[in-house]
């Protein structure tokens, strides 16, 4: 049992609509899905994005694609058209997800 980064188990891409960001988490290996379902909670994700997004955060499970979709509200500085950020679309935000460390990884069985 050791800690693991989301990066080690999954890949990710960010999309945007208005002031909402959606960030996918897609397992490389189907066997990691249950661990991510247990540990990569909405609370943990909102905590990781607290400097960026006000939330709320909603997690959608897409089991058939061994994936999750996290929808972060109030995440893009008011939206692409009025945001003062350099990355107005938030396209780089998936990298925050990938850096999240999760405890108690049991390994693939």
């Amino acid at each position, binding site marked *: 049992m050791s800690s693991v980064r989301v990066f080690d188990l999954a*890949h990710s891409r960010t999309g945007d609509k208005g002031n909402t960001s*959606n960030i*996918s988490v897609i397992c490389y290996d189907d066997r990691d899905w249950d661990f991510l379902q247990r540990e990569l909670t909405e609370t943990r994700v909102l905590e990781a994005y607290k400097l960026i997004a006000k939330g709320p955060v909603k997690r959608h499970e897409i*089991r*058939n*694609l061994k994936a999750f979709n996290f929808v972060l509200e109030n995440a893009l*500085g008011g939206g692409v*058209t009025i945001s003062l950020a350099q990355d107005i679309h938030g396209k*780089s935000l998936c990298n925050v997800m990938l850096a999240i460390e999760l405890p108690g990884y049991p390994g693939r069985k």
Partner: protein
Amino acid sequence: MSRTKSLRVGSGAGTSDDRMVPALELAQRGDIDYLVFECLAERTVARENQSRVKDPEKGYTPSLHERLRMVLPTCMEKGIRIVSNMGAANPIGGARAARREAKDLGLGDMPVAVVLGDDVIDIVRTMPQLTLMENGEPLESLLPKLASANAYLGADLVSAALDRGTPMVMTGRVADPSLFLAPMMHEFRWSYDDYAKLAQGTAAGHLLECTASVTGGCFGWPGVKDVPDLADNGYPFADVTPDGGIVISKTPGSGGLLNVMTCTEQLIYEMHDPRAYITPDCVLDITELKFTQEAADRVRVERARARPRTDTLKVTVGYADGYIGEGEVSYGGIGAVARAKWAAEIIQERLRRRGFTYEDFRVDLIGMTSLHGDNGSRPEPYEVRLRLAGRAQDRKAAYAVGFETRAMHMHGPGGSGGACEPRVKDVLAVKSVLLPRHFVKTEIIVEGGK
């Protein structure tokens, strides 16, 4: 008569600034029947509406000329039909511009079918009670500064325009996946009762609508997700059978990668609830969808599902909302970050003393905090670029941000360099409302031809 053999629909652009050569290569080597150019972002129509106000001939996507000049000879020679929303705020103007390009290329009198009716500004002006989806407030508050209002039209209208038989169909705002679904509906005579087929076609459209984002672009990561010859990544197409069978592939001999991983990333992209991806054509559900790698760079899509389309169309309203001003300057070497932070304080103090106020203001240390915020423990880089940005209704206030940042060369901490010229851009904000379908009056006309 509906088509019995398989159909190949290619993707030639996913934004108005998309790369152009891969679209030509797809037309030349991809053996495609249709080439779709999706060129409108959320606020693009609002911006092009302003161009049309200045010049009634303009208002279509400015890159239309260069794009069509490149692909038209090949498409006309091979009989590839073009579908595009490059009409933006002026679909008739876009059609006329396309016809001029065809004529100048020696391709003769090319008729273009035009889809009209997405511009609903006159309709929503009379409906101040419509609710803004973003904040629940009535549309009324935005009406005085409204610059545009465009409904996302569906595939049915584009399919009806294709029925006119022209080599090209030009539209304004149409939902991105609908542009790709339209040739399938047109060729196979799919109806709005064929939910399984609409679902498959919509999923295919969503996979294709960002061109290279499904062929290794926005994906590659050295050592983890390697992509071969990403420099030459090809654009995708869908092979579609009359029963809704879909295989996604890309230009033969091109670089890039198309596999289950790239398809999964692109499918979830810009989606919220995977059970309810709402387009004008259906409500797509991907929670049983299955990808299968059939061969190198060929992925089969199965079991997309859909529910009936909703009674409303989403309308994006654009409105002028002040200005954003920006400035940047760099610091390097010993104490670079401390000097940059001091400079930021000085600039903000000067703006305050000059009496400027901002609705929103932001200080970025590029290299440390600009993308993901300042958690107080980012490692200090050797060099840092300071960026300040402010939004204000007063253009002078916006300009002053860049002006005072540039002044750091002579009036700030020691050893700054490379300040940029002050930048000011007009803010065209967008919000959305839902408009009952029956208010939208659509029409298809043909420019040119007999």
